[in-house]
């Protein structure tokens, strides 16, 4: 087999990796906002849940989380009499999303906390409700602060998708492993694999830069 023969199976794997990255990043972004705002909430129960979520998922290893969801959760389900067997795709997206969401939540919290106190006072003076202040005033100003960190986290997430190959999900790394087991041509395959991940990371970085510009357009439009 020539190295060109590896391209088509690797591309199939790359497509799985892309899908995993997209879905888990979206899930992570949603969780990041829910729990990042939750950590600043005045409701103590919501705050406690958010802190627990962030600490648990930032404090343990992603691979441990992935194995727990895939191997241990079904047994917990059996003990409770419910079927919690997750297909590898779902376990993968959940683990990646939950993990990156916890890191994102800290970013969201930090960005919201960094919005100047005067803005809150001005909003109150204008008789805005708490909800209007949050969504209409604080968040639009906080999002540009979050974007650079979100860009890093998205690339982090892309790299982390390689771990799902360990629960037999046919992503890019899994395909490469299959080819290597078959051909023993380690140098070529792993070099191609590294270059493909690098290429995907560059594209993802460019996309996140684009999003960043889109999110900060109101700043440049005014001046």
């Amino acid at each position, binding site marked *: 087999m020539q190295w060109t023969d590896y391209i088509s199976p690797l591309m199939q794997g790359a497509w799985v990796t892309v899908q995993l990255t997209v879905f888990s990043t979206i899930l992570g972004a949603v969780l990041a906002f829910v729990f990042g705002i939750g950590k600043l909430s005045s409701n103590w129960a919501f705050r406690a849940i958010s802190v627990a979520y962030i*600490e*648990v998922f*930032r*404090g*343990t*290893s*992603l*691979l*441990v*989380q992935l*194995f*727990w969801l895939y*191997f*241990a959760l079904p*047994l*917990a389900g059996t*003990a409770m009499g419910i079927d919690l067997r997750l297909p590898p795709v779902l376990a993968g997206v959940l683990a990646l999303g939950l993990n990156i969401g916890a890191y994102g939540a800290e970013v969201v919290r930090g960005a919201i906390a960094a919005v100047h106190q005067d803005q809150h006072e001005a909003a109150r003076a204008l008789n805005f409700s708490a909800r209007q202040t949050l969504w209409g005033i604080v968040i639009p100003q906080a999002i540009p602060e979050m974007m650079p960190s979100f860009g890093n986290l998205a*690339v982090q997430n892309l*790299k*982390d*998708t*390689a*771990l799902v*190959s*360990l629960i037999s999900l046919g992503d890019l*790394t899994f395909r*490469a*492993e299959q080819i*290597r087991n078959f051909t023993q041509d*380690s*140098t070529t395959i*792993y*070099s191609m*694999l*590294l270059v493909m*991940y*690098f290429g995907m*990371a*560059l594209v993802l*970085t460019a996309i996140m830069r684009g999003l960043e510009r889109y999110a900060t357009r109101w700043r440049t439009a005014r001046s």
Partner: protein
Amino acid sequence: MLFGFEWDLSSPLAFALSILPILLIGMWVTIQAAVLGFAVALVLGLVWAVLKAARSRFIAWPASVVTEFIRDTPLLVQLFFLYYVLPEYGIVLPAFMTGALALGIQYSAYTSEVYRAGLEAVAKDQHEAARALNLSAARTFTHIVVPQAVPRIVPAMGNYLVSIMKDVPVLSVVTVLEMLNVAKIVGDRTFDYLVPLSMVGGLYLIMTLVASAGVRLLDGWLPKQGIPLK
């Protein structure tokens, strides 16, 4: 039985207690791998930082490309690369060493940025003042730049040590018997994954909380303005 410890499957609690020593042996391997990887990252990161700060573009530019490449590719793939490709060129390392090297290489890309930021944070007028006082370049570096840069660098490095710890389970794919791998073996043999994997999660939480508290303590203890000179 693993490492000479029998497990007791009579109840979940008895099972958890009986495998605790086994997991602690795994944890010790995890800590060793993390510390060794961190040491590699500290040294290699400094090399990258120096190369990237080089005046010649022919040195600085390739160094930035290499670190960017390291940063943007998964640890798992880098580990596979080192584990399967190095022996083809006659470099045969034990799995544990390969793993620690992979961790160190991956994190060197991050630590090089910490060094760069720490050194650049020393204000420009400090350099000018040192020059005005006729200090040599070497003396400026050791007595002016380093004492001010270290308090900025140390906490960030500590956070990367915690991150490395959380990446050690990846080494299980090349047969390193760290904590997660040990728990997985216990699960494979007893058909009970819930207890061992949950325990690994709990032990990880304790490890990272303790390590983070240590980093915060160190951060509070370091003088913010710089280490005073004798």
